[in-house]
């Protein structure tokens, strides 16, 4: 296709190079600097898309991001599911196709890179048109740190492509000066899409080669919104045909890209601005066949044409009608300040009856609008308003400003007042729909219907008609809808107001918001010092919080069940070892440590002797179990606490909170040492033999090294803390060494245990073993409504201490009422039946009619090697009174599994093995 509508000169395109692209299967050519829209228009193509619900042909209405119609899908060089042709920069090999209102994600891998950057500045100027450049230059010359963001490939705004006038030259010089200043950052192709609290502005920057999107998070002390204005159309029947374009957009295509929109052009306007377009078009050689000025009573009432407009039906003030043959209709219904960011910042808008638009009512302390975004129109006014906004931003920062010389602009004739016209009369009853929101196929009739249905607020009309909810957020339709609604309700648009502007004001890919925080970088992955060993050994891992923990170590041919049974058997009959390094570990130091721990744990910790350990339960003030672990006294004024893996940070924060906010007089310091120590539980009847072999200095006899005591000694030549603590119910030790030495000590233990068949075991076996002993896991067997007494842990609650956190709540009526849920074991009648965790318990063999009275639920469920059967732990109403009773678990397949309630300790109730 030849570029028949490209002028021989003009525009900011690179005419020395040709850019080939394909649209809807047809090959076209344009130039670097073109958008897809300008290149298509240069080739005479207006029809690019299909409307979303009516399937009508749609063209290109605008020249920017406010475009409601020209939605396209880009297939190459990299896929974008839904963008506007007016914002796609042309490049060689571009393949695109028109859309019918909505795109689809391709599902193909996305080659684009996404990232985010933080920036801080004194003054952020959004928009690099005349007002933005004047504001930025004023601020920058005063030495302020300035960020200037503009969505176009180069600064200039409405002056882009105007090289001839003094203002155009000034803009180019200002942009060059700003780019060279060290404390100024000029961001092109960057759309500020949201203003958030305390002047945080988010902007999306696009880059083509290689494809990339970057979200700028700009924290500015002052923001100047100089984002320009969006022209709005007028609603009339058939106002959606390709070839119908906003008048200002036609001027942009002419000046920025050297493109004529058509040969025989009709203009329909309510205001003076379209005459600038008329003048430029005629100067460029186009034929303007008619100018219909609504102020003279000339109106467009309809259009004709199949894939493009061919004629306009017009009515004059005297009622005479005529058809005008035309290939292009340019429309101007006035201009809406692009005050989205200002409004998001909670800036108030007021209705300007002269402009027929909502304009900023006045600056905020740290956000001000400038230029046409501030309701100031005309080049001279925009330049002066921009410079003024820069000066006032500096004043707010207590900096002095020097006036920046501004270029002379042609005297603007005394403007003729605009006529505010939302839709031509009877547009709601026209032969063809009169569209208000072209992106949503919503019409004047739809707005009238909404009003007729009783909608009285623009917010309700918006939701009833969907006007303003598309990708363009109603930039060309919102005020139109408000105006038509006001007319239908017989009220004043000023009191009706606009819908609320919310970020983002332009489409932002989710991938850009996610940035690098996806895949393995979505959340930190924590691994222990022994991780590489587990990987080499073929361990399957489970995620526990952010940790990767070995779940089980399958041997060749083993499934999970077989491997876990083997690991459990090894611990019960020989010896096993596991990586317990993820346990939270907190070092407590200070002369008041004992007093502090007495206040937060339910048990008495001040009476612990140095070198002794005790099981401890932490409760909230409400008496509910928060966490558990061991407390080891490592010195007169020093303790080592352990927490569950998932609660390590929470417990540290909890303890800090009490120290900092309640007991500020206690001399206690807390330090997380979780990652300092690698901890290796060594469990099983032969664990003593293994330990003895690697710790020659240690007397491992029961008399010298009893249960719940702790020793410092050398293990495999490495300084270690060895504690006789058991989470399996077996004779067991926990060996802690500095993380650096973990692998050496682990391997030494393995080597020493060869004769006893030492077996590494994972978290699943650990869970089975602890559940056989009825040891609850906080957060699995509890849910924040469970007291220590409910868990059968009354023995761990001190009767002697006058108070500790949670104690008073144990005496609350609810904590002592009968019928509380208690931790018990369940033995399925079918010894091979593994109950699903979370399953409900009922009292009858058949499920009664709803509401079904539930007695509790299964919290943990396993297959036990030691018991040679399945079993479960459960929280059951009055559970301990039900021991021996049969209850029932309804299953997904409709069957009901009978279970016997049992004491939670199913294995070695006397504790003989542990104490052996």
């Amino acid at each position, binding site marked *: 296709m030849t570029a028949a509508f490209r002028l021989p000169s003009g525009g900011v395109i690179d005419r020395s190079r040709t850019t080939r692209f394909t649209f809807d299967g047809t090959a076209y050519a344009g130039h670097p600097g073109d958008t897809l829209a300008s290149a298509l228009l240069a080739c005479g193509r207006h029809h690019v898309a299909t409307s979303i619900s009516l399937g009508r042909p749609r063209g290109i209405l605008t020249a920017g991001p406010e475009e409601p119609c020209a939605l396209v899908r880009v297939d190459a060089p990299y896929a974008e599911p839904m963008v506007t042709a007016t914002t796609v920069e042309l490049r060689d090999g571009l393949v695109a196709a028109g859309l019918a209102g909505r795109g689809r994600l391709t599902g193909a891998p996305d080659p684009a890179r996404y990232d985010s950057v933080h920036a801080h500045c004194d003054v952020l100027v959004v928009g690099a048109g005349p007002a933005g450049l004047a504001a930025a230059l004023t601020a920058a010359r005063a030495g302020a740190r300035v960020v200037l963001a503009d969505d176009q490939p180069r600064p200039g705004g409405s002056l882009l492509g105007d090289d001839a006038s003094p203002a155009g030259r000034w803009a180019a010089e200002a942009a060059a000066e700003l780019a060279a200043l060290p404390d100024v950052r000029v961001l092109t192709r960057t759309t500020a899409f949201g203003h958030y609290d305390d002047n945080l502005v988010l902007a999306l920057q696009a880059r083509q080669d290689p494809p990339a999107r970057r979200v700028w998070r700009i924290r500015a002390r002052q923001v100047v919104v100089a984002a320009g204005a969006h022209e709005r159309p007028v609603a009339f029947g058939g106002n959606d045909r390709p070839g119908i374009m906003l008048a200002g957009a036609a001027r942009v295509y002419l000046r920025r890209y050297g493109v004529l929109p058509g040969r025989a052009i009709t203009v329909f306007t309510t205001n003076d601005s379209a005459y600038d377009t008329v003048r430029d078009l005629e100067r460029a050689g186009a034929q303007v066949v008619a100018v219909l000025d609504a102020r003279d009573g000339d109106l467009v009432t309809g259009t004709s044409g199949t894939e493009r407009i061919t004629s306009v039906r017009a009515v004059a003030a005297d009622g005479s009608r005529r058809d005008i043959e035309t290939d292009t209709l340019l429309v101007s219904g006035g201009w809406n300040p692009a005050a989205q960011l200002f409004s998001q910042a909670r800036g108030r808008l007021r209705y300007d009856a002269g402009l027929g638009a909502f304009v900023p009512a006045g600056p905020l302390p740290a956000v001000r609008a400038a230029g046409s975004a501030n309701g100031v129109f005309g080049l001279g006014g925009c330049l002066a308003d921009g410079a003024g906004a820069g000066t006032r931003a500096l004043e707010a920062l207590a900096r002095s400003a020097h006036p920046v010389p501004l270029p002379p602009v042609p005297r603007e004739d005394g403007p003729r007042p605009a006529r505010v016209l939302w839709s031509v009369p009877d547009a709601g009853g026209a032969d063809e729909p009169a569209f208000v929101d072209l992106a949503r196929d919503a019409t004047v009739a739809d707005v009238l219907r909404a009003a007729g249905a009783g909608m009285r607020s623009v917010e309700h009309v918006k939701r009833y008609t969907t006007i303003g909810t598309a990708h363009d957020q109603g930039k060309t339709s919102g005020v139109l809808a408000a105006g038509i609604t006001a007319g239908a309700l017989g009220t004043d648009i000023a009191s009706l107001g606009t819908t609320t502007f919310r970020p983002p004001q332009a489409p932002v890919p989710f991938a850009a918001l996610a940035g690098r925080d996806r895949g393995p970088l979505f959340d930190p992955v924590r691994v222990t010092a022994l991780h590489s060993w587990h990987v080499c050994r073929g361990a399957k891992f489970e995620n526990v919080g952010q940790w990767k923990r070995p779940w089980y170590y399958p041997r060749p041919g083993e499934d999970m069940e077989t491997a876990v049974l083997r690991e459990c058997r090894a611990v019960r009959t020989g010896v096993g070892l596991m990586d317990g390094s993820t346990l939270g570990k907190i070092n407590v130091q200070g002369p008041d440590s004992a007093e502090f721990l007495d206040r937060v744990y339910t048990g008495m910790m001040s009476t612990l002797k140095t070198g002794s350990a005790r099981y401890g339960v932490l409760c909230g*003030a409400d008496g509910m179990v928060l966490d558990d672990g061991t407390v080891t006294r490592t010195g007169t004024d020093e303790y080592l606490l352990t927490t569950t893996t998932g609660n390590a940070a929470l417990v540290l*924060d909890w303890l800090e909170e009490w120290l*900092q906010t309640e007991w500020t007089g206690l001399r206690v310091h807390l330090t997380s040492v979780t990652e300092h120590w690698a901890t290796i539980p060594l469990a099983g009847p032969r664990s003593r033999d293994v330990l003895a072999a690697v710790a020659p200095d240690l007397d491992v006899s029961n008399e010298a090294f009893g249960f719940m005591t702790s020793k410092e000694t050398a293990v495999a030549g490495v300084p270690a803390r060895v504690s006789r603590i058991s989470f399996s119910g077996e004779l067991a030790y926990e060996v802690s060494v500095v993380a650096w030495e973990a692998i050496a000590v682990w391997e030494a233990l393995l080597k020493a245990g060869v004769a006893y068949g030492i077996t590494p075991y994972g978290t699943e076996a650990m869970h089975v073993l602890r559940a056989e002993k009825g040891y609850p896991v906080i957060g699995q067997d509890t849910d924040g409504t469970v007291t220590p007494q409910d868990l059968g842990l009354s023995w761990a609650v001190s009767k002697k201490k006058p108070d500790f956190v949670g104690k008073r*709540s144990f005496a609350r009526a609810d904590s002592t009422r009968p019928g509380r849920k208690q931790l018990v074991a369940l033995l399925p009648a079918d010894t091979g039946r593994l109950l699903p965790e979370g399953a409900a318990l009922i009292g009858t063999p058949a499920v009664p009619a709803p509401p079904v009275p539930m007695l509790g639920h299964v919290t943990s469920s396993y297959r036990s090697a030691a018991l040679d059967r399945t079993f479960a732990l459960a929280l059951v109403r009055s559970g301990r009174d039900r021991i021996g009773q049969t209850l029932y678990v309804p299953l997904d397949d409709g069957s009901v599994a009978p279970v016997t309630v049992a004491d939670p300790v199913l294995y070695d109730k006397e504790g003989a093995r542990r104490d052996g």
Partner: protein
Amino acid sequence: MQLLTCPWCGDREEAEFRYGGQAGVPYPADPRALSDAEWGRYLFVRDNPAGPFAERWVHSAGCRRWFTAVRDTVTHEFLREAP
């Protein structure tokens, strides 16, 4: 994303902080002396004014220290931050 002024670190983004509820609700000196109703009020009942409200905050992703801030619950504006 609001900025909070940590008394020790200065202006930081709100995501670095954790909220700790109403300030000035001390742990009772002798919980045993309280009735169930009084203890329940300590546990569960807090003020909820529309306007300035003294709150506890902790700079959890920073210095991890607690401080008191007065915030207008209507405008979300922080009026004062102090250790």
